[in-house]
């Protein structure tokens, strides 16, 4: 099996390599050689079996590395190629990163779930080590010396005995004639020799971003393209009865209107349907659309009224529900008495509101479609476009420019399908631009949830029994018309994985009907589950008359591995094995202890209206403890002068990017805790832009967030999402410490914090 190919002729590299150059390309993790060595069933395994991530070494020494994951601000486009460059022993300044098109042969490209580094760290370093060994062997043969006498310095192979050197570019042609080494032949660098991993590099696109040259999905252009603005049915599943296009057609620059058919349930990633106004520029399309007169049949979801729905959720949360985890005997323990406390929590729908609204450009010609989409999931673009246009998936080419934020919204490519449908109907390339109002009113929303909590405290103040119950419409409703019940993937997130050392514990859940499109939003179900559990832990501490942080450590109990499968057999552990990624209370304890020390917990003289709150959480296999400090004045105005957060995410490739993610998570957490609320009236979403759906501005965000990365020898875990969940409860616990007011419903803009 020859895994070496001349990639200069392949579309993957888009002609980047010089013509006629002999180029080494390693198709990494060759299936026949290595498949037996990889654990089966994981996403890494899928990547290993469909290996088409490329590294190319050009004869001028330029190293091309394919980034196959989407870049939306988490630096996966920098950090994964950096892992490859490390083991290749490449000089990073001579590396060119090429963005992959959507292709299942890359393995998963769905850039969500905080798993880019976790799933692809190993494959990338194997690819780098493979290419390095082939270059080294080429040099050894050229010099007629044993391979063992050769080593590498950045971008050169060195003969240790004679001091002879040969650059990677000079060796590329010869190296390409060698067979791909077997995995057991590879030699990885010792950690002490690492130049990049653990030290990091600035984003590959940093200068382009700061000079306005970076190309985002919004910036895609092709010749002869036209622009579309789409009027969607105001209520999910609504259908067009009639419309009048006279108004739009009078607007200068408007060419035509095109009807997009409604979806067949379940909505999945299908377009919502509606009327597109096609014009010569974005403004004319938007202006024309305002003059459109449409009459809709709203359909069954017009019954959705958030005020009423909230009461129903809260009522359901007070009723017994299905146990997702059951340990000991909660009912008997409650019957034995103790100090019983109960509380109810509520978190509304949220919208993603990435700065770049959904946008895609599609060009349909002769049964083939080329798409430039701001997408976290280019293979899903291929799938939905293929399905909607009736063309084979291979005939759908999806380019992935930079994303102006994603947060989970852009894993759902409905807008890319809209562009493809329109291009086919119009006979030209069409760019679909969603307005901010479209983005807020037609999102795949974070769900809405009600939680009920009950504990019985023993004489030491610690719970003898703990019951928690959540009720929310599931993400499953997006994929299944009957998908009301929560999946294990949602329940694992801060519910069935509770690490507290309590003998009798039950985590319950019941489903609810969905009336909006429900989807993933940065850290997903962890947001509301963590808010309830970590707020309630603080309430228990207060009821027990104990310090919040000391009590939290006592709740977690001694260092141990939590045998979660025993009481929650369905627990999926974010797709990671429990052997590699156990629920380890020592790591919870450690991040709490670090943040306690760094934040000065218990040692600060806090004035009137000031307070500190703590929360700890494990999500996406990463452990995070966060302390928030607040000031609340008599008018109830809130300031967040300081946040301290300690992170154990295992091996960190890019520490600076990691700090950036956790600083950003504190702001994201501030937004959702202070302002985040989507509501509906008669099925129509009430919010539409940053006036009615505010997100944190500079003067509302934490003034300073300090991030402490814990040294860890554990395998890499996620960093994009895990900073979000503990923020809201830590903030509300701080507000309680400062004011004595317990916030059990978000957002805070609805609470009265004043004296």
């Amino acid at each position: 099996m020859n895994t070496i190919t001349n990639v200069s002729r392949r579309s993957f590299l888009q002609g980047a390599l010089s013509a006629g150059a002999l180029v080494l390309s390693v198709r990494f993790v060759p299936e026949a050689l290595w498949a037996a060595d990889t654990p089966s069933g994981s996403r890494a395994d899928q990547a290993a079996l469909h290996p088409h991530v490329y590294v190319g070494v050009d004869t001028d020494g330029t190293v091309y590395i394919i980034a196959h994951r989407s870049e939306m601000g988490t630096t996966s486009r920098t950090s994964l190629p950096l892992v490859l460059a490390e083991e290749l022993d490449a000089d990073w300044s001579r590396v060119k990163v090429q963005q992959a098109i959507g292709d299942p042969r890359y393995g998963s490209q769905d850039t969500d779930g905080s798993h880019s580094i976790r799933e692809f760290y190993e494959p990338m370093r194997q690819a780098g080590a493979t290419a390095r060994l082939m270059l080294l062997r080429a040099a050894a043969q050229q010099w007629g010396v044993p391979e063992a006498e050769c080593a590498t310095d950045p971008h050169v192979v060195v003969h240790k005995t004679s001091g002879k050197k040969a650059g990677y570019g000079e060796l590329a042609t010869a190296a390409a004639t060698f067979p791909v080494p077997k995995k057991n032949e590879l030699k990885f660098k010792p950690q002490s020799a690492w130049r990049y991993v653990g030290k990091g590099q600035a984003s590959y696109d940093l200068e382009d971003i700061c000079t306005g040259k970076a190309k985002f999905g919004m910036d895609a252009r092709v010749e002869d393209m036209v622009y579309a603005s789409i009027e969607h049915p105001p209520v999910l599943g609504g259908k067009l009865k009639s419309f009048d296009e006279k108004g739009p057609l009078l607007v200068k620059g408007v060419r035509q209107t095109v009807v997009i058919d409604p979806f067949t349930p379940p909505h999945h990633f299908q377009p919502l349907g509606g009327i597109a106004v096609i014009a010569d520029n974005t403004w004319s399309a938007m202006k024309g659309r305002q003059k459109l007169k449409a009459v809709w049949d709203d359909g069954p979801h017009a019954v959705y009224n958030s005020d009423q729905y909230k009461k129903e959720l809260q009522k359901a949360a007070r009723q017994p529900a299905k146990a997702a985890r059951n340990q000991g005997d909660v009912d008997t323990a409650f019957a034995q008495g103790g100090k019983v406390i109960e509380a109810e929590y509520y978190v509304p729908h949220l919208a993603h509101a990435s700065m770049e609204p959904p946008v895609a450009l599609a060009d349909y010609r002769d049964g083939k479609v080329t798409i430039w989409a701001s997408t976290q999931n280019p293979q899903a673009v291929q799938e939905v476009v293929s399905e909607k246009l009736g063309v084979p998936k291979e005939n759908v080419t999806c380019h992935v420019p930079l994303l102006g934020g994603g947060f989970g919204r852009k894993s759902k490519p409905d807008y890319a399908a809209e562009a493809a449908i329109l291009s086919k109907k119009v006979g030209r390339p069409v760019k679909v631009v969603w307005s901010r109002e479209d983005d807020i009113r037609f999102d795949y929303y974070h769900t809405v949830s009600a939680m009920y909590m009950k504990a019985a405290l023993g004489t030491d103040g610690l719970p003898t029994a703990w019951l928690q119950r959540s009720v929310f419409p599931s993400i499953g409703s997006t994929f299944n018309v009957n998908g009301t019940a929560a999946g294990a993937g949602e329940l694992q997130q801060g519910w069935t994985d509770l690490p507290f050392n309590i003998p009798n514990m039950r985590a319950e859940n019941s489903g609810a009907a969905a009336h909006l499109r429900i989807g993933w939003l940065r850290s997903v179900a962890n947001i509301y589950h963590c808010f309830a559990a970590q707020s309630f832990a603080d309430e228990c501490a207060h009821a027990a008359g104990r310090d919040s942080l000391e009590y939290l450590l006592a709740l977690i109990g001694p260092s141990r591995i939590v045998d979660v499968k025993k009481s929650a057999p369905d627990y999926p552990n974010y797709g990671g094995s429990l052997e590699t990624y156990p629920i380890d209370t020592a790591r919870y304890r450690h991040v709490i202890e670090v943040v306690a020390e760094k934040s000065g917990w218990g040692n600060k003289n806090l004035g009137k209206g000031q307070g500190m709150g703590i929360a700890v959480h494990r999500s996406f296999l990463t452990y995070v403890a966060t302390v928030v400090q607040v000031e609340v004045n008599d008018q109830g105005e809130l300031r967040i002068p300081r946040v301290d957060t300690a992170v154990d995410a295992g091996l960190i490739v890019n520490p600076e990017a990691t700090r950036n993610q956790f600083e950003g998570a504190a702001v994201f957490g501030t937004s959702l805790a202070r302002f985040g609320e989507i509501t509906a009236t008669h099925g129509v979403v009430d919010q539409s832009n940053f006036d009615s759906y505010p997100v944190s501005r500079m003067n509302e965000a934490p003034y300073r967030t300090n991030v402490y990365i814990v040294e860890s020898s554990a395998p890499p875990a996620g960093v994009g999402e895990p900073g979000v969940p503990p923020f809201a409860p830590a903030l509300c616990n701080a507000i309680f410490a400062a004011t004595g007011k317990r916030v059990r419903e978000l957002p805070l803009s609805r609470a009265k914090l004043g004296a």
Partner: protein
Amino acid sequence: MVQLKVNGVQRSFDGEPDMPLLWYLRDVLALTGTKFGCGMALCGACTVHQNGKAIRSCITTMQRAAGSEIRTIEDIAVNGLHPVQKSWMEVNVPQCGYCQSGQIMQAISLLNEKQKPTDEDIDDGMSGNICRCGTYQRIRAAIKAAGGERA
């Protein structure tokens, strides 16, 4: 016919006079460094300079831009990186980067008015520019660093 100067080049526009400058820059001139975020002057992603002052191009019609000098992010580094761009890179401000053209244009305008802005000045000057990734503390640090370099 609207006459205006964009990045030093004289331009004339015979389209709809109520078209916002943003879409003229992006769709007609292909100056895509200036971004669309909200269309209502709520987020600042579209910030450009009109006669040296930061404005929101999404609500500035071509009529109102007539006769003025417009400068966009593309023109800032023509003679090498601007000190604000340099400090943005040193502090490693961006995450996704989409709002950063607008943030940088706003920061340059702020520093032109006040060389060494206080925290309050920075809050006042920058709170109209939203960053959903949450890079605010790095923006603040970069503005302070750039202010120091200019002093």
